[in-house]
Every structure is written in C-alpha cells, then in structure tokens.
C-alpha cells in the first residue's frame, strides 16, 4: 500500500510536469477481462507515440451500462469525449443529433489525411447515414459463424472436414449425430435475435424492416414476419421438439456455449469474436469452422452476413483541443498495424482493407479465423444486408427473445410469434419516433 501510494505520488509529480501541453480526453468502454487489458495496451501505445494528447480509458461495465452511464453523464454535463456503444444503440445515438459529433465531421474538421474509402463497406455501412457519411468509428465488429465438433462428426460417420452448408444439411447431420449417439443434440445457437433473425434475414437477402431496414428514417417499421423468417422459426421449433436443436437462453444465449463445450451439442452458431474462447474450451475435441447455413431454395442466398459489436461515438460539448485529440486517436486506431494487432488478438474483424491484407499471414496460420471476414464480404451488401437501424432496439431484441420463447413453449406458432414481434416492436418504434421529432 505504501509502495503503491509512493508510486502514484511519483506519477502525479511526473504528470504535473508533463501536463502543461497535454490534452487529456476520456474514453468510456465496455471491454472487460483480456479484451480490456489489450485495449489499455493500445491506448498506452497511442499515449507513448506522441506528446500532445492523452487518452484515459475507463471500463464502465456491460454495453447497456456503459451507454446508460454516458447518457446520464451527458445529462449532467459530465460526458466523456469518446464512448463505446453497441450496435443496437446506434439508432438512439444517431437520433440524438445535438448530443453527438459525427465521425466524418470530426475528421473533416480536425483529422488529417482521413480517407473514408479505406474502410470495409460491409463494416462501416452499418454506421453511415443515408448519404454514406461515417457517424461513428467501428472498433470491435464481429459476425456470427458456425463452429462444429469434428470429433463428434467423425463418430457419427460424417466427414469431419465438411461443415453443413445448408439448413437441410444441418437437419440431416444433426439427425445422424443423434441417431448414432455421437452427441445428444445437433446444434445450438447464441443470440436468437442477432443470429437467427437479423443475420438470418440479411444472409437470405430478406428485409427485417421497411425503408432499408430503418436506414431511411424514423418512420420505418418492422417487417420481420416474412415467409422466409416464418419458415425458419417454424423449423427451429420443430427441431427443438425433436431434440435436434437446443435453446441457449435469451440475449446472447448464456447456456449455448457450455452445451457445445461439454459436447452435448455438435454445432453452435456464435460470434466470430468468441473464437479465442471456443478454442480455449475445446480441449477434448477437434474444432472446425464454417459459414452460416442457408436455405438453398431462397433466391439470392447466401448474400452476406451483418456485423455486431460496438463503435466509438464522440459526444458534443467539448473543446476543439479535445476533438483534435479524439481525431488523432481515431487515426491511430484505424491504422493497419493497430487494427491487425487488435483483430488477430480478439477475433474481431479488421475495419480497413489494409489491415485485412496485413492479416493474411495470420489467417494462413490460423485456419478458420477468416470465416467471418469472408462471410461479410461474400457479396456487395444490399439494402437488406447493410445492417439495421431502429430506435428502442435494445427492447425490440428483448421482444424477439420473448416471442421466440412463446414459440418454443407452444403458446404461439411461428407466424403468430413473428407477427407479435412486428406489432410490439412497431409500438416501440412509434414511441421512439414521437420522442425524437
């Protein structure tokens, strides 16, 4: 304790000496554990690389907690300069026009040599306005992929090197796996909302809402109750009844990954960013990677998958010096070296093409690590597969989970459940529209 306070006293004196010229900005983030350590390392790298600016990262808990903290701080005029917000908070952040400084504007005014075309369209597309201007800086983006257990595949008499490509194969493989007794369930999934609804729709080039999935304006409404989605939810229910599919719980599906690790389920669909975690836990079996399955009778499938994760938003009410610091930091963050380092460490996607090229060696050494990037760049994004932008979307995701649970419990059929998603979601969208007009 004494040593600690001596050290901090020394640090304080040292910082007093250096503080004259330095502009300090706060960055509130939601990266705990190893990702948080890595993030601090990156910030340290920036702080050491120059003497004019200093970024101070603070961990604020989960994504919703970080966003809530930033909003409360903004109301109290104590906001940080940069805040990390998850993708479903995008609608809320965007609508708060007086509260945020769009990244394209920040970089035009304060950044040097900033080239928006260097970024991957499938990543930044999610975070641009209807004119294609970047609103926030992508930091950690991922996309769902398929992980499968090669050992179980082999036991079931399947080719361990061939993951299922279509949902028909998922069903067929799962049946073989269960009948042979190689595992007690075929597949599970994280994120019913993000993976089996939003990404599923983009992957099959189906809209989930009107007006380009909400990109077109606040009066967009949901349209996720289309025939393809209804068919898929109906199948999931059938497969759940047959035991081929096991539900891992709402939101991220906390119980899905353990079922895959314990070899109860032979396949899991989950974020590409959980790669490191999956590898660490797949100690007793051989792990394989594949793209998300699709229905081959749907025209245009597979299209491209969409991303999840979080971006960095700049809040208003700060001085020019602070914005200069933020712009310098963003230039540093999007440099190929930093991006490649962060992406290979975490499993998140690189956000610039240059970083992607730098990672070729890493991809060659780590088979399957490029599944995510291949998937999001599979085709030029359409208006159905660019992403989505709706207000109150945290709650709408909750509604998707709830209605899926109603479907599983047999209270509703797939059509009824998705109709309710649309009806209840639209009420929230209307409320959001009223709040923001």
């Amino acid at each position, binding site marked *: 304790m004494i040593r600690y306070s001596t050290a901090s006293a020394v640090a304080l004196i040292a910082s007093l000496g250096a503080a004259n010229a330095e502009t300090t900005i706060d960055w509130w983030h939601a990266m705990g554990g190893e990702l948080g350590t890595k993030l601090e390392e990156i910030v340290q790298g920036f702080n050491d690389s120059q003497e004019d600016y200093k970024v101070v990262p603070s961990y604020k808990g989960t994504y*919703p907690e970080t966003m*809530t903290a930033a*909003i409360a701080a*903004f*109301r109290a005029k104590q906001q940080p300069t940069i805040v990390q917000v998850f993708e479903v908070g995008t609608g*809320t952040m965007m*609508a*708060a*026009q*007086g*509260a945020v400084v769009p990244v394209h504007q920040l970089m035009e005014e304060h950044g040097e040599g900033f080239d928006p075309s260097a970024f991957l369209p499938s990543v930044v597309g999610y975070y641009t306005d209807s004119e294609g201007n970047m609103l926030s800086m992508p930091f950690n983006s991922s996309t769902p992929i398929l992980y499968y257990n090669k050992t179980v595949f082999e036991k079931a008499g399947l080719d361990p090197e061939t993951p299922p490509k279509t949902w028909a194969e998922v069903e067929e493989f799962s049946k073989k796996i269960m009948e042979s007794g190689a595992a007690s369930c075929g597949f599970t999934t994280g994120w019913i909302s993000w993976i089996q609804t939003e990404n599923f729709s983009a992957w099959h080039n189906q809209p989930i809402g009107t007006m380009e999935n909400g990109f077109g304006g606040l009066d967009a409404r949901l349209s996720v109750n289309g025939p393809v989605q209804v068919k898929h939810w109906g199948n999931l229910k059938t497969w759940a009844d047959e035991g081929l599919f096991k*539900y*891992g*719980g*709402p*939101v991220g599906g906390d*119980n899905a990954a*353990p*079922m895959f690790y*314990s070899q109860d389920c032979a396949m899991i669909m989950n974020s590409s960013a959980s790669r490191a975690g999956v590898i660490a836990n797949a100690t007793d079996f051989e792990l394989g990677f594949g793209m998300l399955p699709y229905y081959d009778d749907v025209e245009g499938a597979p299209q491209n998958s969409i991303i999840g994760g979080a971006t960095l938003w700049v809040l208003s009410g700060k001085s020019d010096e602070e914005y200069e610091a933020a712009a310098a930091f963003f230039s540093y963050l999007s440099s190929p070296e930093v991006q490649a380092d962060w992406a290979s460490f975490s499993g998140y996607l690189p956000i610039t093409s240059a970083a992607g090229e730098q990672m070729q060696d890493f991809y060659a050494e780590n088979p399957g690590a490029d599944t995510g990037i291949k998937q999001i760049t599979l085709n030029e994004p359409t208006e159905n597969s660019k992403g989505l932008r709706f207000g*109150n979307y*945290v*709650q709408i995701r*909750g509604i998707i*989970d*709830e*209605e899926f*649970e*109603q479907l*599983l*419990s047999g209270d509703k059929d797939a059509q009824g459940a998705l109709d309710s998603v649309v009806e*209840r979601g639209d009420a929230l969208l209307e*409320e959001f529209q*009223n*709040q*923001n*007009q």
Partner: protein
Amino acid sequence: MKRTIFSNQLLPWLLLAPQLIITFVFFLWPAAQAVRQSFLREDAFGTRTSFVGLENFAYLLQSPEYFNSLKVTAIFAVSVTVLSMGMALLLAIAVDRMIRSTRVYTTLLVWPYAVAPAVAGILWWFIFNPTIGIMPYVLAQVGYDWNHISSKTDAMMLVVIASAWKQISYNFLFFLAGLQSIPGSLREAAAIDGAGPVRRFFDITFPLLSPTTFFLLVVNIVYAMFDTFGVIDATTEGGPAQATNIMVYKVYFDGFIGQNIGSSAAQSVVLMILVLILTVVQFRFVEKKVAY
C-alpha cells in the same frame, strides 16, 4: 414529567437537519422528479422534451405487458410471502420446542438474512442452472426436466425460492419471539383440558401470534414487491417471455436499459401509490392489533 424547553428556536431544526436533508435529497426530490418525468416525453439524451399530460399512464393501461407485470407481481408476492412465512413458522415452532441448543439453531437460521439479494440470486442461479447446476441433475433423476430458461413456471419457482429463502430468517426471528412471549401456562391449561398438540396450536398459539403474523404479512409483501430486484436481475432478468418481470424490474428495464424515461417514471409513480396504500394498511391495522 419534566419537559425540556429549548429557548433557542433554531437548535431543534439544526439537530433535525441531517435527517431532513437526507430525506429531502434521497426521497422527496427523486420522488418529485419521477412525478415530473411521468408527464413528459423525452429522448434519451434529454435534448427534446415535450409535455404529454397523462399519455404515459394511458399507454401503460393499454399495454398487455404492463398487466402481465401486475399479474406476475401479485403471483410472486403472494408465493414468496406464503412460502417464507410458512417455512419460518415451521422452523420457529421446531426451535421453540427445543430444550437445548436453541441459540445455536437460531444463529444458524439467521445467517441467510445477511446475504445480499444479488448474491442470493447468483447462489440459486448456480444451484438451478440447467447446464451446470446440481438441482436439475437431481430432478432429472426423478424425471423432471428443469429449465428455467425456457419454462415460465420453472423460472417463477426459481425466483420465488431464491427470494423466500432470504426472508425466512427475518420471519423466523419474529415468529420465535412471538412464540416465546406466549405464556406456557395457557398451553398447559389447554393440555390439561385434553387438547392435543394440533388443537393447541390452532386454538391457542396461532391466535396469540396473529399480531406478529399480520405485521410479517405486510413486511413480506413489501419485501417481495420492492426489495427483490437483485434476485431477479441475477437470475432470470425478468424472463422468459416476461414471466418474472415484476413491476420494480420493469421500471428499471424500461428506464435504464430501454431509455424510455417517461414510461419508467409513470410506472414508478404507480408503484409509489401502491407503497402508500400498503403503508396506510400497515398503520391502520397493525398499530391497532399488535400488543406491545
């Protein structure tokens, strides 16, 4: 009786000031804010605010989710109260009949009360976790497929057990004190008149315990309705399909997660009114019936 007269008019106010300030800052002011917010519609950042009158309340009354929450709260509060009071009474009677080691049992039984609701929630979440928990494993042996992630009934049972478990200690202490204050001579007299243990309990003990029981009833309902946020947040987060979304949790979720501050404020105003009613009930009835 000697009355103290303060010659200084200011001194009493000064002595009261800390309490008054705390009450104002932490109770009255936030409550007033909630009432104000309940009439407003606002975006998350507070950059656009408009007065909407009773629209937030009207919206609640049209919302099937809100009525579901009311129903869930009622089921939850009654179940927690019945379970925790029933168990506590049984334990208190058992301890009351013990001749030795009464103190040891009393001490042990009070322990859970010291556990924070969130910790209690995590504890039961582990025990009942469908993938790694011990109880689902045991239940599977007798043919029950426990899964509080997809089954509404299982989820409700989980939060009721976790919440009631914590409250048993508190109830137990009051019941034990109540039992020990009943004169032994009354029960002896009944025994001499030929009443068996069951008869003695229902004719002598239970009626004499009624002030304690009524007091605990109110305290437990209030506990179940307002103090179990931690348990819910740590176990089910209101799910599945809103099956455990009690009113307090819905206020938090709609306001803090959903950023719908107007609706959240309207819900907390409704809750405030409910607390008021419960407090009135407590004072009107408990004060009259409890024999100190």
